[in-house]
């Protein structure tokens, strides 16, 4: 919060769009502001109504350079906008720098993202030091707009000021459950934890989940937890599959019908590519998991209850596939979420369970919780 913890003493607030940028149609500006208001409305008891004239709690305007508040804008780039904490007069107001190119997508500065951030200030939130938070001060042009959500830090902050949203009398809530407080960071030792994708990378093992991954090294009993975007800003979240080709020092990651090749922190030029360039039929829209047999230079791709085998030497999908997973990997669940190879074993993950498969004995030799690798 701001120094002194200023907040609105009411839960219904008015807003007014005083003027518009010429970068966007008016209805696009209206829509971006409404969407940004909803971000905060969804997690609090706050409600908003629009007024088109006179005083409003939150007045929204576009301006350039000196605009009468002793905080001049600086032309294109750097400062995008600013806003004032709750209070009378200019307090609560939002000013956007109209020297920016305001857009609805990511081709310029996304108005919705900046508006949602500035509204946080208008409601009483100060900057957050959490890079995952909407209230982090630096604009993140890589934010996935389709999957945008507040961080737990944002939710905790705004609910500290205004409380959670009221529970509808029609909505059953188990007495022992707290009111949902928004999207949460996955917990390593959550007994229900499942993984999106798993791969080795340069001697470490990466466990991907939503926007995050755990990084486990052989040389340390500690494991690290990071945002995917911290290392690979252009990658999407919620990956489907990942595998490493150690001989090429490349990590391949998959999401939907696309895949990326990564060396270290560098996404390789020419990617993403379509998964169909690997030889999948056009009916396949995504893969569930992938694992590379490092010695045999074969990569296994799992889709539903079937799998394909790719020859890394020939760079082609092998004949005779797909085959049923159950036929060649007996004991493994009919479908898998993630897989990787380590210590000569294939490890297949499904939900909160993992199956250690010995390829020589062609059998599952041990079944453990998925997060056993995270010392849980």
């Amino acid at each position: 919060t701001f120094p002194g913890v200023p907040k609105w003493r009411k839960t219904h607030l008015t807003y007014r769009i005083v003027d518009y940028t010429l970068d966007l149609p008016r209805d696009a500006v209206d829509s971006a502001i409404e969407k940004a208001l909803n971000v905060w409305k969804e997690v609090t008891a706050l409600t908003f109504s629009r007024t088109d004239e006179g005083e409003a709690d939150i007045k929204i305007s576009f301006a350039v350079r000196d605009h009468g508040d002793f905080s001049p804008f600086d032309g294109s780039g750097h400062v995008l906008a600013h806003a004032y904490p709750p209070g009378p007069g200019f307090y609560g107001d939002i000013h956007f720098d109209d020297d920016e190119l305001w857009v609805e997508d990511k081709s310029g500065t996304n108005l919705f993202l900046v508006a949602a951030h500035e509204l946080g200030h208008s409601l009483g939130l100060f900057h957050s030091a959490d890079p995952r938070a909407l209230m982090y001060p630096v604009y993140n042009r890589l934010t996935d707009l389709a999957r945008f959500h507040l961080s737990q830090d944002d939710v905790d902050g705004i609910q500290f000021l205004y409380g959670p949203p009221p529970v509808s009398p029609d909505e059953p809530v188990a007495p022992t459950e707290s009111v949902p407080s928004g999207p949460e960071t996955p917990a390593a030792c959550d007994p229900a934890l499942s993984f999106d994708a798993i791969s080795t990378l340069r001697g470490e093992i990466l466990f991907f989940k939503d926007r995050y991954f755990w990084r486990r090294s052989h040389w340390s009993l500690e494991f690290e937890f990071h945002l995917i975007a911290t290392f690979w800003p252009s990658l999407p979240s919620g990956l489907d599959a990942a595998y490493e080709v150690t001989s090429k020092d490349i990590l391949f990651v998959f999401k939907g019908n696309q895949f990326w090749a990564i060396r270290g922190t560098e996404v390789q030029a020419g990617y993403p590519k379509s998964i169909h360039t690997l030889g999948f039929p056009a009916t396949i829209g995504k893969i569930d998991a992938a694992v590379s047999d490092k010695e045999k230079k074969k990569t296994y791709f799992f889709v539903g209850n079937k799998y394909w085998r790719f020859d890394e030497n020939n760079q082609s999908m092998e004949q005779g596939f797909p085959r049923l997973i159950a036929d060649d990997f007996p004991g493994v669940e009919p479908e898998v979420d993630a897989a990787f190879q380590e210590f000569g074993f294939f490890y297949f993950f499904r939900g909160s369970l993992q199956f250690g498969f010995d390829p020589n004995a062609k059998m599952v030799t041990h079944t453990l919780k998925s997060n056993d690798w995270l010392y849980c």
Partner: protein
Amino acid sequence: YPLNGAARKEDSNMDFLQQYLENYYNLAKDTKPFVRRRDGGPVVEKIREMQKFLGLVVTGKLDSDTVEMMHKPRCGVPDVGDFT
């Protein structure tokens, strides 16, 4: 000529740093001149504060990661203190 160019770039970086710290980290405006100081003066402390806040490696120095972060588009509201 190249040496002068390099010096100018460094001065420009330092001016930008000073302004950034004044705007967003509540650096007192009478702290100048600071760029030649190599001790743990208020500017170094402010750099450290900024690096910690922005999730950078805390070195107290104007390293490339810090400069890159400072040049990214951002909100004009200070990270520390209030509007100056």
